[in-house]
């Protein structure tokens, strides 16, 4: 069947729009963040006057107090806030909502782009690395939106979720881009649908988990510095607006508890496919090997979380390592080395 060039072009346009809209959303988040912090500091100063009991941490003013940092964000929402701070806060709120709306529209553009690509070439839209990254990013954003719908307070994470998404999409559109084309025979299999969709979905979830992990580490560092009375420097200054370390840690775990079985399944589906295509279900080709390395690292994370003395900072650090191995697999292996996987389609 011939390729539908009109739809293929539409898909590319929607892809570009998705990036632009995500960038707009990021800007809104960033401004909300900046205003929000200003409002927060102002309100913190106020509440210091009004409520002598609870003194939230002051950024840059050499935080004097070691009260639970969670109080700071709570203070921002407390009725004590008034005047300029409230105005800042209200504007920030509007921007925050606009950011969420933009994120949703961006995700819809991405979805449209994938559907158009799929129809234009009469196959599932995850037949090469470019499409793979698009699917993974869409899943990551969707995860984030689902988490947000359950807990509106997570909105402050938005900027940090979209950052890797926009970076990855940028790379996908430039370095990994492959034009609309049918599949090569080796990829023409039901297992493509199963294996690659599971791998892309779990990669997307892992990406969200990675962001949660990074934010946990920031929040945790912020808390530790606050308690120790040390100066809070970037990136730990971000911590003030984040949910509590405990809830971020739990979120990190939950997200990985979802992604890990799916990744396990993806690797197994891949090896069933490999058996049908290349005779042996496991041949330690570089892509397989890195998938295995990621799997072992994430298993180590789940393990570490249950190991005495590892829970918390050390365990979450493994998550960062895990995402690093996923990135190696995505970029280094596809672009630098080629094994049996004829998937990359980058030339």
């Amino acid at each position, binding site marked *: 069947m011939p390729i539908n060039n009109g739809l293929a072009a539409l898909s590319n346009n929607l892809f570009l729009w998705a990036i632009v809209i995500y960038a707009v959303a990021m800007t809104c988040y960033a401004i909300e963040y900046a205003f929000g912090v200003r409002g927060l500091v102002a309100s913190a100063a106020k509440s210091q006057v009004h409520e002598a009991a609870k003194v939230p941490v002051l950024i840059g003013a050499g935080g004097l107090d070691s009260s639970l940092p*969670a109080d700071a964000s709570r203070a921002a929402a407390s009725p004590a806030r008034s005047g300029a701070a409230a105005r800042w806060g209200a504007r920030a709120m509007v921007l925050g909502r606009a950011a969420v709306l933009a994120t949703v529209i961006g995700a819809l553009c991405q979805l449209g782009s994938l559907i158009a690509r799929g129809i234009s070439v009469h196959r599932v839209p995850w037949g090469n690395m470019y499409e793979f990254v698009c699917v993974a990013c869409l899943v990551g954003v969707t995860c984030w939106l689902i988490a947000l719908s359950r807990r509106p*307070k997570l909105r402050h994470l938005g900027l940090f979720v979209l950052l890797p998404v926009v970076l990855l999409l940028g790379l996908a559109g430039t370095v990994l881009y492959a034009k609309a*084309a*049918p599949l*090569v*025979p*080796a990829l*023409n*299999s039901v*297992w493509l649908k199963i294996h690659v969709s599971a791998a892309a979905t779990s990669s997307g979830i892992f990406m969200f988990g990675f962001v949660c992990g990074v934010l946990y580490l920031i929040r945790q560092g912020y808390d530790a510095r606050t308690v120790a009375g040390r100066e809070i420097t970037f990136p730990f200054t971000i911590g003030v607006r984040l*949910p*509590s370390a*405990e*809830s971020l840690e*739990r979120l990190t775990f939950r997200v990985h*508890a*979802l992604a*890990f*079985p799916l990744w*396990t*399944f993806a690797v*197994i589906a891949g*090896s*069933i*496919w490999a*058996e*049908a*295509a*290349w*005779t*042996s*279900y*496991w*041949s*330690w*080709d*570089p892509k397989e*090997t*890195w998938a*295995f*390395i990621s799997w*072992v*690292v994430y*298993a*180590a994370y*789940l*393990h*570490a979380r*249950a*190991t*005495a*003395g*590892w829970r918390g900072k050390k365990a979450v650090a493994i998550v960062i390592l895990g995402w690093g*191995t996923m990135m190696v697999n995505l970029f280094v*292996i596809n672009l630098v*080395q080629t*094994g*049996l996987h004829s998937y990359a389609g980058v030339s």
Partner: protein
Amino acid sequence: MLSKFVAMLSFQLRRLWGQLISMRTALVLLFLLALAAVPGASFPQRDLNDGKVEKYYHDHPTLAPVLNRLWGFEVFTSPWFSAIYLLLFISLTGCLISRMRVHLPPLIMGPPQVPAHLSKLPLHERVETEREPSQVADELQSSLREMRWRRMRRRTDPDGTITLSTERGQLREVGNLIFHFALVVVLVGVALGSLWGWKGGALIVENSQFCNSVQSYDQFTPGRLVSDKSITPFCLTMKNFQARYLSDGQPVNYKADLRYDEGKSAGSSDPRKPYTLQVNHPLRLHGAGVFLINHGFAPILRFTDRYGTTFESPTPFLPRDPKETSEGVVALPDANQDPESDKKQPNVQVAFEGIYVPTAPQFPPFINSEYPTRENEGITLLAYRGDTGLDSGIPRSVYTLDQSKVRSGQLALLGSKFLQPGQSWQLDDGSSVTFVGTKQWMSVEISRDPGRLTALVGAAAMVAGLLISLFIRRRRLFVRLHARGDGTSIELAGLTRADSEAFAAEFRRIVSTVREKTSVTESGEPSGAQTLETVGTTHAD
């Protein structure tokens, strides 16, 4: 003295064993395993691609031998990689045994006794009622059962205090055990495959027959315990090969029409059963699979030597690019031998180097094909005469000429010519060569892996176990009822290991149900209430 020594030794061994099966060791070994796999993905591996290893030797002449000594080109069968995963699986087995001892008895025996000090548990609440203990206990038991807390243990102490303990989600530990056990099953599957599996590669030209035996393979890799007899008999012929491409040359589909027979009768007559072999659709036979790997063209040259003897057969050429430009050698070590004489003349052998193009360009040179199917085929031949070196008995590639013979002048280049089907070329000694046409060939890999199914079952169990263990939460609920005045004081406490937040909400629901059912005058215990409140705040966060 000796007994003391034995005691000490056994103490040390136990300690070592305890360390080996600890979570910390498992963690370290997991890291080591991940780390050890990295060189396997960074350096070319012999099993995967021997050619790349050779190239690595060529590109890094000093580093390659060092890497080789450290098993850098066969990481996954190296002693150090094996050591890590074997240690990990020993640790795993030990861990499984000790954890089965811990987790299976409660599974059979039911929930544990109610602890003495319920107020020490993280979730704790007290409810007062005017009804008497046994009545309340009955009521509680039935409403908890309604809430699907089914495994219940009830005990009445001599002083009339009634305790209830119940738990849910014990399956979590079972799931975890299944997952870890399944890892062992997968490893067993892999081991079965590497001991009793085999694989071989063969190239089959259109209409020629291939029968399964060790000798008929171009290369054959047997598992450690494979004997020639364990190779099942079957025969197959390739009738026709179709490759479809887009107009820009991107392949869309490869199909090979096969006829095959298996079992004892195989080989006694022409194979009959039809099968269409495709990439991703292997032919599954009893005990072996046939997989399509590659395909190409085999030009047919008819050579008539100076004595009038004719040689004609298809010779597979290897594709060099995606447009199927192919290269190969047709060597005729028996050409130009006087039929009247018994003595073999070595220096009159003939060989042709050829570049075959399925679609020749309009203008010369005709050495790069323009499309991968036979639209305008042709072959550029370089004719040589002399000693091909094929009688020396040294095995060498059939796709290239021995260049040392060319350099030393033992094999002399006569000239070159481009031929299309039906065209001939007359050589200086009166012999002639005709390009008759081409046949297609396919290369297949044929393999057997007796551990496949075991590994698959293990893998499926792994996923199932993971899902169970990561999504089921184990939680326990304890209730103590003791008479107080005319009524009963109900003390409830809950315990969970992971995800205390969700359980706190569940616990609150249970407590409020209990309140309703016992319709009460309550005297909330400050500490209990406070616990709930704090947890509640975290939840709202």
